[in-house]
């Protein structure tokens, strides 16, 4: 397995939101694991950086948290998507797709002729 990529600026929030949308209410550790797995273990995520990011999303009202019990009976804070968060996710996903599409056109060899 080659060098792992760092999570680049601004994309962590999108990953978190998408993960919660797919998985339903989830605790911080679960979200971190899921992001790593989804990336096919290509991303190196420092789990500690996740918590301020979660807090930020919560302060912005995109996610809400509640205490609950995990599968193996551990007390944990579960995060779920709010309506505002769903909207934000849609918007950011669209923006991201647009950005990647633009960058892709620069990189594809046929881009110039098209």
């Amino acid at each position, binding site marked *: 397995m080659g060098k792992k990529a760092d999570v680049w600026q601004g994309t962590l929030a999108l990953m978190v939101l998408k993960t919660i949308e797919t998985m339903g209410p989830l605790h911080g550790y*679960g979200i971190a694991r899921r992001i790593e797995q989804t990336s096919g273990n290509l991303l190196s995520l420092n*789990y*500690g*950086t996740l*918590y*301020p990011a979660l807090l930020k999303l919560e*302060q*912005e009202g995109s996610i809400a948290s509640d205490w609950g019990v995990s599968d*193996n009976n551990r007390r*944990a804070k579960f995060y779920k998507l709010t309506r505002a968060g769903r909207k934000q996710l849609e918007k950011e996903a669209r923006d991201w797709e647009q950005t990647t599409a633009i960058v892709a056109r620069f990189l594809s060899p046929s881009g110039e002729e098209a």
Partner: protein
Amino acid sequence: MKRLRAWLVRLAGLLPNSRRERDLIDEIEGNVQLHIDENLRSGMSYLEARRNAILKLGGIEPTKEAYRDRSTIPFLENLLQDTRFSIRQLRKNPGFTATAVLMLALGLCANVTIFAFVDAALIKPLPYRDPTRLIGVYESIQLCPECPLSYFDYLDWKKLNHVFSSFDVYTGTGYLLNNPAGTEPVHGARVSGGFFRTLGVVPILGRDFYSGEDQPRAPNTAIITYTSWQKWFGGRRDVIGQTVRLSGVPHTIVGVLPRDFHFAPRGDAEFWAPLHPNASCENRRGCHNLLGVARLKDGVSVQTSLAAVKLIAQQLEKQYPDSNRGQGANVLPLSEVIAGKIRPILLMLLGGAGLLLLIACVNVVSLLLVRSENRRREIAVRRALGASTARLMRQFVAESLALVAIGSGLGVAAAYWAMQLLIKLIPADMMTGMPYLLGLGLNIRVLALFASISLASALLFSITPAFSSPLSDMREGMAEGSRGSAGNTWRRVGSKLVVLELATAMVLLVGAALLGESFYHLLHVDLGFQPDHLATIDIAAPEKAYATDEKAAALGRRVVTRAASLPRVNSVGIANIPPVSFNGNTDWIRFVGWPYHGEHNEVNTREVSSNYFRTVRAKLLRGRYFAESDDASKPSVVIISQALAKKSFPGEDPIGRRIGDTELSPKSIRQIVGIVDDIREGPLDSDTWPSEYLPFNQGPDNYFTLLVRTSQAERSVLPMLSAAIHQIDPSLGTLNESTMRERISESPTAYVHRSSAWLVGAFAGLALLLGVVGLYGVTAYSVSRRTHEIGVRMALGAERSTVYRLILKEAGWLTAAGIVAGVVCSLTTASLLAKLLFGVSSSDTATLGAVAAILAASALLASYFPARRAASVNPVDALRIE
């Protein structure tokens, strides 16, 4: 929106919250536990599982820290913490805090207060349209550079000039306001039709005068001021069109002026009427009673306009040599006309306040340096525990901000209070001449000055400790009893600052002493009469009822007879203008039988009753006083002042000579019957003009002052006097009930001198105090740093007197340097004061010497205490400090 929400949540996070902290710990540790569980399931040992989980997290504490930073606003959180800490520090040291805060508050208070006055008088734009284009226009003669125009001269100047876009005139007048409650004397002004248009003032109610409304045949109308509207008409809007009787003449009110309107030259005028040239003065080219105000045409400078009106004046001189010879012209910016007199005083006070602030700041800086010197170890310890330079600097900033915040809060509150107090101390009479001061307050410009002083001092105090504290060298600071080189630097810098303080104190003390001496000279100026035990009251008679000279003269006699019959009254006199009011109300005279080449012989003219000179106790030098029989049926007589006798009849006896007007018209010829010693008719500080006195019976006036000499306290007869006058005729107006001594001490000149002497004196006292405190601080600091050295010297056999000498010599050098610098600065700055001085030279050696002695004595006292402490050092204790 999202961002704002996040910020608000974080702002709320500044409040301490123990639940949040517990949740945070629970969450992170719970998640680590989940990770460990999973690692265990994948077959790791517990230790390995835990290590891996923590490693993957990036450390538990750093994670918590990052989380906390996100949950609040770190910058604010630190700031709050710093502030709390600095307030604790300041409370720990109340002596230092109180001194520093008080000094700062004092400096700020003085500056903000004085600046508010400067702003109201000199900076705030006048309430006219484009006020910088307005000028005051005057005729000028040698004796009087800014004198009124005559009506015909005004008309000619207006017609002939090409520099004014408009040119109008005004003159003061008095009315008796007849309202149901009785007769009230009120002030008014008569103006030419375009006066308010020239100023660019539009009535808020009704209309302006139209051009031509000032002509004799136009109906009598009046525009009233806002205060007058409120006072006499209850602010009712139907005032327009109402008729008001002014001195018996009905006037229709056509307009109300804006609330912020003021016009200092006629600050007391409540009723403004169109000019309607009268027959007494405005039908002669030689009678000057109108002051001009003009708006300059675009692109015309004040200089150009001056040259233009001078040219017109020269032309008129040739055209009308009889009346206009020697009549020049003068113009002044209107702002100068309105606030010119008060400017030097205000600027001087502002300078004084500035110096005071400087001293206060120097002292606070010196205190801060001493303090940070004493905190060397504390700072070194905090540094050793990991505080960064930036963090330490932030601490200093927080401390200075706390100091400045408290000091400036107190300062601005005190300034607000001081403004209210000072404005109340200005006599009402003077206030009418400075109506712009009513706009005094903490406006945006004053607050801007306040904010910039506060910020500048906060900045200064923030960087100060960095000069002395061991921000760089930790080990040196930790070393017990170390003597850093920084301390020596401060001893040098501090000494220089103290020299500066002492010099400043010296400058202010010299200023105060000179002003004090001036005031003393002013009050002891030779008046030519005895002002004690004289009660005075002004009487205004309605023009309609007392239209003829006979009626007016009869009224004068009745008033005198009635007043003389009152108990406790020794003698009674009347004069149309009492002494110590102003030079003016002049006559141009010529002597019968002398060659005449049109020279300007202008004298004060006063009409006085027969007993006037005896009542005021003026000295008769030759001839006789007036007799009651010198009335209209007898030949006209005149008494002249000694100054006129000396000027016009050197080495001759003037008694029996005759005086007339410039044309020697038969009606004007009067025989000189007496010479009195010069009575000071004008302000205390201006030269005595030659004067002539006419019998009241031969030239009565409708407005005159009754002067009563009593053996009792002069105030006690005033109520009786005013009652007696109203018994004679209820339609008579009385005003300015006062005593001669009060009139003198409240005269603008005395007031200006007294208040500037007091204010500068107060500044000087504070400066002396602060300078001495500064010297004490530096000397005490030096002693505390030399304790070890002194101990060694004493152990080696030095006498206590040697130690005294050692310390006093150090302080003595500083004092001497301060005094020398002070003398040099005083000599330069005192010359700026020259305008305000009276009877004393700005380089008065006795004053300089006395002030230097006071300063030296105070400085000696200030350095005596530290010297005594140094001399009482026990060598054993001193050496043990190490």
